[in-house]
């Protein structure tokens, strides 16, 4: 396997596997938020803003994986 093809595989795997955890995390966050809103529709704005904030953190992990993929592709 030439280094070039290994680089391509590494880039694809980095973002592919790295996106799995955050996707799961964001899905769980949203589902718990939906449950909470369903139980208490009056608190919907508060739950919504807390949900968006927590999603930004979960997304950050996917962004780290994306940065590694970009570094492998563009710099290494």
């Amino acid at each position, binding site marked *: 396997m030439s280094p070039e093809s290994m680089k391509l595989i590494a880039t694809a795997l980095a973002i592919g596997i790295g996106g799995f955890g955050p996707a799961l995390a964001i899905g769980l966050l949203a589902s718990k938020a939906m449950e909470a809103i369903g139980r208490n529709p009056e608190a919907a704005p508060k739950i919504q803003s807390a949900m968006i904030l927590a999603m*930004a953190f979960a997304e950050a992990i996917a962004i780290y994986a994306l940065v590694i993929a970009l570094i492998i592709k563009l710099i290494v």
Partner: protein
Amino acid sequence: MHISLAAEKIIEVGPIAITNTILVTWIVIAVLSFIAVKISRNIKTVPGQLQNIFEFILEAIEGLIQDVTVDKAKTRKFLPLVATFFIFIITANWIGLIPGFETIGRWTTENGEKVLVPFFRPPGSDLNTTLALAIISIAAVQIFGIKSLGLKYFKKFLNFKGPIEFFVGIIETVSEFAKIISFSFRLFGNIFAGAVLLAVISFFIPFVAAVPFYGLELFVGFVQALVFAMLTTVFLFMATISHDEH
């Protein structure tokens, strides 16, 4: 299509190189300073339109900070720094969506191929800018902690009450540096990936396909500014409470 992770230099003045992100940071500073001077020149009790918009923004941020620290005095202390982070980052992110960014530039040859060096690039897509903002944020957290707790603030990091507490102190120290990395990479990754996404989509179907992604980028720019400001608020709050009550 050429994507460069590092910001491209456009002018070199002796040993100092001016990159396209530095130029846009100056533009953002100029725009925000112009607005600030214009508002504070004729500040009225019944505000005009521009003053009203910024009063609304500041009151919204004050509300967010108040939700974290239930103390009015602390909210007043934290408000300038947190609001500056929010307003600067949201302006820097949104100004990168103006047409002309990353498309207007100068053609140069690099390694035998013609490469476009854009004149304008969003500041958030440069790791230097985001790292600087992160260092300022965490340094400010330390300074606020020392100002409100005195030298007892360092009991968080050097805790000799027992072996477990000592280990926790070490973890806290490492976690401060991890916060710097996490801040800078979160903002950098979001904005850089957004710019690359727009470039790639516009490469395939120009003008039309990019419209929903511009909407996404507007949203992402706002959320990242909000997350930076909120995290700074939470860290400031955690640094200024005394840890005696466990």
